[in-house]
């Protein structure tokens, strides 16, 4: 009996011991994931993360079109960089209204946004996502780490690291423009919970971006000297000229001369305007594009999301529009207020080809009615040859979005010259007429020196660059964004438009950021 007992006890204990000796089984690692140590073992591994650094501005997450978003608190499709930038830069201006009821979206055109607005939170989060991913890449591509990992092509990784710094500077430039005084992190900021970065002032951030860009510039590839979709020297110059153009707004000190200098470098970088303005935003605009300096790239099958150019095309198609014109199904959202078409000599594009509208009611009485306000057909997922995009379901666009293109740099040169940046007046007129001639298809649109005024530049920027994410910044620079001197339908939530308080020239820091970081103080007025 006792023997049996001992045997049974022994057996039971053995099983119990087995169970409790399993403490090491508490270390689990997910099957399909990979640690940094296993990922950064080759140039290819680094490149897959560099891809994510760029894609943080083009895609919304790890699963196309949606399902595993990078940033939260917002619908994933809306969390796309271009879509958010469009909402904050265009919907708040005369260039656009939207029919939808997405959270916070109507407050933008009504100019009554508050710090809890999800779209404001979205762009802030998206920019910081790009910065944090860049920081990670910059950390992991430090010389000592690359050396320790004995990567074959270390020079290539050095180059990638500069590009990650460029993406970071670009994302900061958007934060500087939109929010003014964000938090500040770099590759030395740890990853975790409860870490509270310090706030940076708009002026200090300007200096940081300028310094970074100048530091990476010498070692970046020559203009058009990198792979398509990756930044080169011209991209760095373009960003420098853009922040210099707005330096007075950001820091109180104008930098017109520097704006002239760097836009000129780009203009002389070997780029040329496309012959047909209407081919700028087509499905195959990645092919033979001599005007684009740096693009965010899309593909209707391989790079899908519900933002980006998919948003720009679909959101602007609705009502009685023929869906084949733009080539995607249409979500019935975006139109222009009458101010935008009225900048053009006609609405059909017969004179100025940049006038690309679907004419419905010009006047808007109900913002939620798609058929009120002209629809815009600038972005079309059709090919130059007249074909459709690669997605048979006609949901996703192939159009690459030009973050920088030559015409903008020419317009920067013109404006900075007019404002006393020391540029060559003749060149400025030449550039203006290059843009005008392309628009009109001939010289009838040409202007004279007398016509080349700052007001002309503001209007010309609208005609050339509308719906590309510039309008709010331009109106702020020209002091026409908030005050009553320039009105548009439903500005300030009133049908005929009204001025709003000037503190709205920058957006508030999102409430969620204030709620998680006590070092961040809200912008004045909010």
């Amino acid at each position, binding site marked *: 009996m006792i023997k049996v007992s001992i045997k049974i006890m022994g057996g039971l204990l053995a099983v119990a011991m087995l169970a409790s000796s399993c403490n090491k089984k508490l270390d689990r690692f997910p099957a399909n994931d990979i640690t940094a140590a296993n990922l950064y073992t080759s140039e290819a591994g680094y490149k897959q993360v560099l891809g994510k650094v760029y894609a943080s501005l083009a895609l919304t997450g790890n699963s196309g079109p949606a399902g595993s978003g990078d940033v939260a608190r917002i619908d994933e499709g809306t969390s796309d960089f271009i879509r958010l930038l469009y909402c904050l830069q265009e919907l708040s201006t005369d260039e656009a209204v939207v029919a939808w009821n997405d959270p916070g979206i109507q407050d933008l055109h009504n100019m009554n946004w508050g710090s809890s607005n999800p779209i404001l939170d979205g762009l802030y989060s998206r920019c910081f996502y790009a910065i944090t991913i860049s920081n990670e890449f910059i950390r992991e591509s430090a010389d000592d780490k690359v050396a320790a990992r004995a990567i074959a092509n270390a020079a290539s990784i050095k180059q990638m690291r500069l590009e990650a710094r460029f993406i970071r500077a670009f994302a900061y430039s958007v934060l500087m423009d939109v929010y003014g005084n964000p938090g500040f992190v770099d590759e030395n900021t740890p990853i975790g919970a409860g*870490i509270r970065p310090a706030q940076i002032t708009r002026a200090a951030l300007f200096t940081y971006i300028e310094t970074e860009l100048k530091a990476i510039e010498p070692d970046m590839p020559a203009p058009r000297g990198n792979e398509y979709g990756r930044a080169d020297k011209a991209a760095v110059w373009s960003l420098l000229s853009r922040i210099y153009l707005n330096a007075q707004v950001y820091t109180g000190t104008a930098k017109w001369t520097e704006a002239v200098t760097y836009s000129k470098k780009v203009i002389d970088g070997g780029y040329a305007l496309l012959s047909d303005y209407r081919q700028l935003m087509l499905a195959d605009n990645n092919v033979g594009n001599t005007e684009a300096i740096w693009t965010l790239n899309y593909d209707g099958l391989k790079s899908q999301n519900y933002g980006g150019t998919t948003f720009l095309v679909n959101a602007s198609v609705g009502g009685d529009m023929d869906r084949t014109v733009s080539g995607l199904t249409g979500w019935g959202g975006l139109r222009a207020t009458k101010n935008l078409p009225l900048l053009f000599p006609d609405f059909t594009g017969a004179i100025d080809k940049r006038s690309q509208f679907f004419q419905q009611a010009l006047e808007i009485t109900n913002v939620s009615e798609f058929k009120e306000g002209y629809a815009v057909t600038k972005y079309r997922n059709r090919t130059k040859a007249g074909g459709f995009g690669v997605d048979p379901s006609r949901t996703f666009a192939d159009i690459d979005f030009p973050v920088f293109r030559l015409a903008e740099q020419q317009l920067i040169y013109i404006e900075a010259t007019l404002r006393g940046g020391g540029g060559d007046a003749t060149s400025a007129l030449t550039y203006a007429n290059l843009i005008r001639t392309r628009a009109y298809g001939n010289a009838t649109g040409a202007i004279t020196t007398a016509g080349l005024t700052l007001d002309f530049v503001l209007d010309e920027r609208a005609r050339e660059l509308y719906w590309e994410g510039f309008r709010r910044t331009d109106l702020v620079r020209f002091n026409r964004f908030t005050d009553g001197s320039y009105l548009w339908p439903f500005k300030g939530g009133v049908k005929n438009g009204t001025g709003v308080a000037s503190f709205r020239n920058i957006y508030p820091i999102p409430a969620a950021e204030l709620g998680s970081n006590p070092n961040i103080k809200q912008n004045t007025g909010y």
Partner: protein
Amino acid sequence: MIFKRLLKAIVLPVLLLVLGTAVNAQDKVVTGKVTDSKTGTGLPGVTITVKGTKTAVQTNVEGVYTIKVPAGATTLLVSSTGFALQEMNVSGATANVILVESTSNLNEVVVVGYGTQRKRDLTGAVTSVGSKDFVKGAIQSPEQLIRGKVAGVQITSNGGAPGSGSTIRIRGGASLNASNDPLIVIDGVPVDGGVSGSSNPLNMINPNDIENFTILKDPSAAAIYGSRASNGVILITTKKGSRGKVKYNFSSQFFGQTVPGTVNVLNADQIKTIVGTKGVGASDMAKIGTANTNWQDEIYKTALGQDLNLSASGTVMNGKLPFRVSGGFLNQDGILKTGNFKRQTLGINLSPKFLKDKLKVDFNLKGARTTNRFADEGAIGSAISFDPTQPVRVSSPRFGGFFTYIGTGQLGGPPTDLSPANPVSLLEMTNNKSEVLRSIGNLQLDYTLPWIKGLHANLNVGYDVQKGSGTTVTSDSAPSTYRRRNIVNNAVVNAGGVNNEYEQSRQNLLGDFYLNYANDIAAINSRVDFTAGTGYQDFLIKTKNFPDRRYDKSVISTPVFASSEGEYTLISYYGRLIYTLAKKYVLTGTVRTDGSSKFAKDNRWGVFPSAAFAWRINEEDFLRSSKVVNDLKLRVGYGVTGQQDGIDYYGYLSRYTASNNQANYQFGNTFYGLYRPTAYDPNLKWETTTNVNAAVDFGILNNRISGSVDVFYRKTKDLLSVVPVALGTNFSNQLLTNVGRIESKGVEVTLNATPFKSKKFQWDIGFNFTYVNPEITKLLLNEDPTFKGVPVGGISGGTGNTIQIHTVGYSPNSFFVRKQIYDAAGKPIEGLYEDLNRDGIINENDLYRYKSPNAPVFIGFNSSFIIGKWNAGFVSRINLGNYNYSNFNSSNGVQRQILNPLGWLGNASTDYLNTGFVNNQYFSDYYVQNASFLKMDNINIGYDAGEVFKGARVRITANVQNVFTITNYKGLDPEVGGGIDNRIYPRPRIIALGVNVDF
């Protein structure tokens, strides 16, 4: 039946023969039969002892005993668990006795996790519901058996689809982002999670196999399950093999399910009138069709179902092997056309004892196979918004002959972009089927150690494996997926449709070992019950990834990985001491430490203690002789439990995840797959809940009235919450981390009464009341007053809109809305809201928190009557103070829904007639309505026909489920889990007829 005859013919004579030969001449032999006062049948296993001696025998399978009584002895003691002890005098050679079920449950044993405990010694909030108290009727899923029966337990069915599950909340749930589901343990095996293709993990258990539910509500009771007990524990015990001869039971129910009502939408004539007056000229009028279709009538039907169960239970192999075998078959159609649920179950229990009963074995094996056909529930939303002037079918054979909006100017004339799919086509042109297999099994060995009295060792090994697989098929001519076609060079190469597979499996393994020492120590008038043990649990989930295919199986996209896998492991050590002094004072202390693979090494182990004290006041001298008070007990308890369920398996790990093939990025002419670092908190640790519970249990007037009152306070800290993080400090803008507190205060009252009781008539009443009031007391790392809270509760309408919010100082999930302004006639004025902060601007700063979907008070009330051979009863529930947001009205009750700006006509909720809103006003508090209700869940009636055939006892039952609802709420059904009322699958009214035969 053959088996039974065999037993009669062989076993009984042999038994008598054996016993008979052993009788000494001077002794007197007494034989007799022990029967149950209630059923009149023989009771096996009853112990007969000759008073004053050690001579004892047990009754056989028929309840018959034979005992030799020494000369001079006159009294026999008859005892059996659950029955009152009886003494009888023996004079002759025959002594029959009728045992009466003991009215006091003092010796009743309750399963408490890692062992059992005498009910009278309980110190925690534990409620036990046995099979005789289960909700009766056509019950398809186990949790429905106790709905409305237990204070503090809320069971909300997730809808009316066949086989659908429920949301169970004990005392309202303790977490925000981690799981609020209680731990469910079936025969010692914790079960969790379903697999793809299973709409409810619990529906794999046949309710007919369940003997008992024990609900551990407070941490002092549940802390022995430490790591997983924050939301309470539900222990399910299945039926075991009975002692005695083999008995069979056959039960069958046939039931019909009717549509209890449909939501109110406009009819064709109303649409015509509205388009005529509000439409924009002739173009809108031209869109009006000629039909008059009630789309909801087209998608619903009255559905039938049947449930068959057969079981055998008894003891075989010379009384050595008690067993129970059961089989069940359920076949149920859904009221939404095409839906069907079938379930086959098999249950085996063996509970033999070896080595002179020192080694007790309990072996349970449960297997189930369900097959589902899922009706496309998108049809419900489509039917309430589809234009009633359009017909179901048209003469054109395209799109399966179903009316469809056809676009113009495109290749092949596909359906109009974004146009709604014909609701009937959604049902009839899709065929989504699944098969789910599950087996739960365990082997428990309990060995009484010979050296120390009262010491036994227990080993339990178990598993829970399940596999779900299925196909989703949509015809290539279905309008909903027409767009998935493949076009190459402007020609359709493959038509659209869907033909996809899925498969997922789970494998949970369990090993538990404990030692228990229980003994009365007379010297110090004490009883000690000590348990110490260790456990290991492993959870593995595997998902196979399949390509996305069209109907013709041509591939649209392929997955990056062939399968994905998640696994986590828990290791536990625990101890429990129950010390009883003088039968009056009971002290329980437990401590458990758990290690979870979900946390980093330094934070992995959590320690969860509890202590509780009970004072059995009725054992005090001043009450012991009371004729009024039978039972009076005071309980106080304190406990800490941990939580790590419902969160990412790897939330603390720094790692990179690959993108899928639709999220590549182009450099040059190459598309690169991407690697993304995942957000993580290296310091992630246990969420802990502290609970204080104080209670009184009482029974008076011979326990005719009994009940308990519990008050509790619960505080959860270090909530595993997904909260905003300072931007730039992690790879997302929010993170799963430990932050925040949530507190609840509550009261539970349970009252059971038998107002009338006689031989022929008995009336029982059960009442339970719960008040629970959860409040968030901390939410963020930095409490910023301008931070409004974490928005939750996504609604239909717009993109990414939410209607609820978690805010400090408020109930979780409070509605976050604008204050509607009404005109003199009480009609809401479109777009006019109060400027609550008086800043002259109406924006998100004017949203306010208005009510919550959580019912602060819920009540269960049930009653049963026995009149002779008839019995009847009902179960009802009341929820008070819960509010719903009518997302159906806010999204569908507007003109925009009828004159759809995308180019077709639709249908609207009749609420449009009340508001006249042109555009959606999603955030108006007009849509938040009081949804308090009284629901008559179940009315049943039964007739005991007695022994209709020889040896066959027949009962006949009839019942109605979801009988009626009393509410002021304007929607279809006020009971909406989460409070956002949007296109719920209507819960059917079920009328069931059943027959139950014991033989």
